């Protein structure tokens, strides 16, 4: 599997997949996509990266332990829900702000932040499992 072609192509492929995963994540509210599927795509990208250049290098690229991403995601999603306490509405109520730039509407909302949390939770978990399985031995 560790062929020259694969090793050369993989970083490009991974970059495209990661960008695509963010695209899928952000379009999710109106078109097919969302945090879960985006996270899966990103995790696949990382798994490919690990296969191509080794799981240690993939870990180094992540900077922190993949599970930390998952924890961050769950915390972010919870935080998006807790935000509603400031407006005296029930937990997880969606809050929306819409900015307009030259007639282009950009919506910032707690459901979006929540979805980003889902993305990180799924990405971190699957990446952690995939990298752990790719480890030949040792590592953590």
């Amino acid at each position, binding site marked *: 599997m560790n062929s020259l072609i694969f090793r050369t192509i993989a970083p490009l492929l991974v970059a495209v997949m990661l960008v695509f995963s963010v695209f*899928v994540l952000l379009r*999710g*509210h*109106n*078109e*097919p*996509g*969302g*945090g*879960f*599927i985006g996270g*899966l*795509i990103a*995790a*696949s990208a990382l*798994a490919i990266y690990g296969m191509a250049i080794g799981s*240690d290098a993939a870990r180094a690229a992540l900077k922190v332990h993949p*599970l930390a991403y*998952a*924890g961050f*995601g*769950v915390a972010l*999603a*919870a935080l998006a*829900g807790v935000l509603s306490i400031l407006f005296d509405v029930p*937990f*997880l109520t*969606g809050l*929306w702000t819409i900015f307009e730039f030259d007639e282009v509407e950009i*919506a910032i*909302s707690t*459901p*979006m932040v*929540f*979805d980003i*949390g*889902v993305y990180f*939770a*799924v990405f*971190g*978990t*699957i990446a*952690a*499992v*995939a990298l*752990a*399985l*790719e480890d*030949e*031995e*040792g*590592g*953590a």
Partner: protein
Amino acid sequence: MEATPAIVIALVVLLPFVAAALAPLVHRLVGDFAGWVVALVPVAGFVALWGLLERVSGGESITVAWPWAPSWGLELSFLIDGLSLTFALTIAGIGAFILLYSGAYLKGHKQGRFLGFLLAFMGAMQGLVLADNLVALYLFWELTSVASFLLIGFDHTRQAARRAAIQALVVTGLGGLSLLAAGVAIYTISGNWELSAAGELTGNLAYPLLVGLVLLAAFTKSAQLPFHFWLPNAMEAPTPVSAYLHSATMVQGGVYLVARMTPHLGGEPIWNLTLMAFGGATLLWGAVAALRQTDLKQMLAQTTLASLGLLMLLLGAGTELAVTAAVLYFIAHALYKAGLFLVVGAIDHGTGTRDITMLGGLRDPMTVSFIGTIMASAAMFGLPPLIGFFAKEEMYAALAVGQFESLVALAALVAGNALLGAIGLALLIKPFMGQLLPTPIEAHEAPSAMLAGPVVLGVLGIFLGFIPTLAGELAVAPATSAILGVPVETHLKFGVDLLGPAFWLSVVTWVLAIGLFLRLDLARSLLRRAATAIGWSFDIGFDWLYFGLVGIAGAVTRLLHHGRLELYLFLVFALLVVATIGPLWLLDGLPRGPQVLDLRFYEWGLVGLAVLGVVTVLYARSRLFAILALGVQGLAVALLYLVFGAPDLSFTQFMVEILSVVILALVMTRLDLDTADRRPLEDWARDGGVALLGGLAVTMLLWAVIEGPFDLRLSNFFNAHSGPIAHGHNVVNVILVDFRGLDTLGEISVVMTAGIAILALIRGARRNKPVGVAPVEPKSQPKRRAARKAAA
């Protein structure tokens, strides 16, 4: 100046918890003076409580309440009446000396943490005696158990300390659960979470149950027979803890509970006789067991058992005189027993031993300790004019009334007091009089911080004895009124009625005590021989129960959790079949099956692809090929979703299938599985049968679902509202992140937790795998890989 009750409660209950969190910091800042600093906390509490004494002794009960969980009708309410104030003053007053003492006793030895635990306990104990709300009462009750666990096991490197800590927690935890049940029952009956509003509960059908629950809680906490064994073991704790928790305060929690419940549950024979029987038995048991000990601390622990039994007995007698005696005795006991424990700690500190047979003649090197012991022992012996004497007079007067039960109890009291008096004499005379014996450390006096407690508490015991009228007005009568629920006037006065029966019973007690003291060594050897002959103790019984339970749990676990993965999977899928087909069949819901299959040609193609994938899985020679074929089947299903208009589902299914194939392949290579499947025929038939049945079951279920009427209400709701109120056009995503966001939050938490579990499994498998080369450094992977190849 008088603080408002709310501030008093905050100072008394809340401040110790805050101080507990800060104690390690204080220790770091001021070093060994930390004891002096944190002792200010109970002093502040004591002064604050003292300010309320006048109002409370005037017959007032003060309530303080804060909203707690308003939606459940819960208020954090406190009640300051004569009973709770007497206990709270004792806890704060003795607590100050204990903290001071601890600072010197545990010099530099994780002192900050120790003082923190003690302070946390103090806050919990104050909460326990002041709480009016039943939930708060339970909460503080359990907190004292937890604090006691931490303090008994403070020296956690010793196995005996750990065992004692767990034992105390298990026994008192049992009582805690019982108290919770009692609290809920009282709420159900009276409709009120405040105990003060519960009224009389004796007429209720559930009355015997309530009595059982409350007494179970009280007996475990106050170490009554047959739950007494944890208290002597708790002496593994550092001495200040034994003095504070396990004689003066925490173990009195059960006594407090009984006193507090008396207006609600008392007055019926079942209550009174049970208390008298168990209290009397514990009194005699503890007093006799104390004779057997040679360790000073164990002697004190056993006499504490006896004193707790005595208090229960008096509360069980329940008359005005008896309750007055109980309150007096509680105060007297707290003063002299804490003092004695502290002296024993000082002796241990100053000589290096606590064995009474190895000590003697300490009156010269440890004069101040000697003076403290004289005062405490005299109170224990019950000499006039100490408060201990008045307590004893009062209890004899209370029970010398001529009824049969009272006379039996009176006999138990005289015997118990005589035994306690003998121990009191022994504690004074054996270590301090006679020849100075050689000790592991050359005998020297303890520092002043350790002597303040015994001396001041001893002087207080004498002082209160001289002013019984004032003590009676300020504390005893208000507490008695609170216990009995009717106003009580004090009748205590300074004087000895030389003609009353009580005084002559006292004389009998003294004579018996002196006689016993003179024969102490004989009594000890006889008791030891008897104990060896019996060869069983409640402590061993506890171990039987405890480890028996652990053994049963282990057996059940081994039965269900046998570690054979194939059997787990078989069981799971077999049960799935039963759970799916069973109800369908029994409720006559078996589907009829599709009548016409109206599919387009490309749809047929996709179905064919899926079938091809499954068939290939069955006939594949290598596992890797089978995994790939399974992936093909999955992709075909994903395409079917797409064709039938579920792009989101299809999209996700694609990714899941791809990742499944990747991860399955990785797992396979990691586990070094045989590349081919070589199951014996019978396993193959069993697994195949379950697989076929499982597939059939799921298919039937889905058919049954499709054949039923399709309820469009939810779909219509989501379609209509996801745009306008959730600002999203992808209904699936809106449901996930908005309408059912809480579900998703739970799911991603589960996903993450599963990830952690999987990592643990992978690491566990790695650790257990026999490695050819011993692991050298974690970072030198390429080298090790090479070494492994070489070794192979």
